[in-house]
């Protein structure tokens, strides 16, 4: 991101897994990323081990304030398996023999 002055928002962490700050989320919204999925794809917010359990609602709230809509109108991202971290090697080995 472009150089800009430090603000207190730089010290507010929204996505702990991927270390995305409130300043970064607000910058992305200002650039026109207006859904949780879009913000997720450019910033990785919500793609870490907790899969958005911490940050999803905080980002939804930021979007609601910025867009002037109630939180329930903020579209939720797509939920896909696995919902918890699984090693690729585990999946690659295929189903365990019983």
């Amino acid at each position, binding site marked *: 991101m472009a150089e800009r002055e430090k603000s207190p928002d730089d010290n*507010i962490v929204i996505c702990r897994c991927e270390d995305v700050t409130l300043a970064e989320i607000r910058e992305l919204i200002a650039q026109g990323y207006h859904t949780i999925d879009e913000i997720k794809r450019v910033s990785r917010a919500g793609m870490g081990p*907790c899969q958005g359990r911490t940050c999803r609602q905080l980002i939804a709230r930021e979007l609601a304030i910025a867009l002037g809509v109630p939180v329930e109108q903020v579209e*939720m991202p797509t939920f896909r398996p696995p919902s*918890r971290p699984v090693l690729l090697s585990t999946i690659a080995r295929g189903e365990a023999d*019983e």
Partner: protein
Amino acid sequence: MREVDIAVIGAGPAGLAAALACGESGATTLLVDYMDAPGGQLIKQTHKFFGSERQFAGTRGIQIPDIFIGRLSKMPNVQLMWGVNASGYYADSGVLTLEDGGKFIKVKAKRVIIATGAAEKALAFENNDLPGVYGAGAVQTLMNVHGVKPGDRVLMVGSGNIGLIVSYQLIQAHVEVIALVEAARCIGGYLVHAAKLRRAGVPILTSHTIVRALGEETVRGAVVAQVDQSWQVKPGSEREMACDVICLAVGLTPLVDMMWQAGCEMRYVPALGGHVPARDENMRASNPAVYVAGDAGGVEEASSAMISGEIAGISAAKSLGFEVQGAEARLGQLKADLAAIRSGPTGEKICAGVKCATVCGGEW
């Protein structure tokens, strides 16, 4: 691929009660939890439950899982799996994917009961990633499960029952609670819990919030401030407080990833903590193979979770044609018990939320 009649995901109070009802019906039942031991949040609830004897009034939360497991482990048609991740649900085939210590397992289940509980909400304030900032659930786990003191001076944020109870348990562990801040104008939890804190001399600052955590490497203090009616910080009201732990108890939100994966109709109900599956009176979701139980269907507490779990278990078994003894009478009693728990001023919000989440007329 393994096949079962009913798979129950999550072995907290809701999942344990659901699995017991399924097991009693004769259905082949699989109960899965990602923790190494069953119980969910019960494993740290050292206080005695109140309410009805049917929901273990007078028993400490930590004793309840053993009561369930004692009965479940005698049932040949029930399989228990701990330390197993339920990582996905594929609605088109009814297949669950599980991960057991590096082994990938597929299970085809005719019915799935989602009892995955809830996650703690976070709060956006400056330096909220400093070591020493904890969720209240984490503090409770450290103290009551592992016997570890989280610190010496705690600022508690949030005055719901979790914030109040964890504050009191901290005091019992000889940790100082310097203050409890609450952004709303009133205390959120039960008066009986708040009164204990006041008697212990803990200041409860309503209409106050945390502005920032102080410290370089770890928490050394916090700046708190008054908020106005639109939740904005009143200029000039900031003040510093010395503490080494900031404990966040700002509410829970249902863990419903698998319900989204199952394509269930979801509704945003703030009174229940966020998005919850639409359900009928018997806890069945819009996908008829999927049931919800406990906090995953709306954040309440352990007694109501056990009731909704039993309702979901009986209903799921019945839907597959299993004979559940006295099913109608039991369902009637359970629904009456739920209504009793939700009566009173604190239950009003829950009742309104449940109404929003329940399909019109109570049936799909």
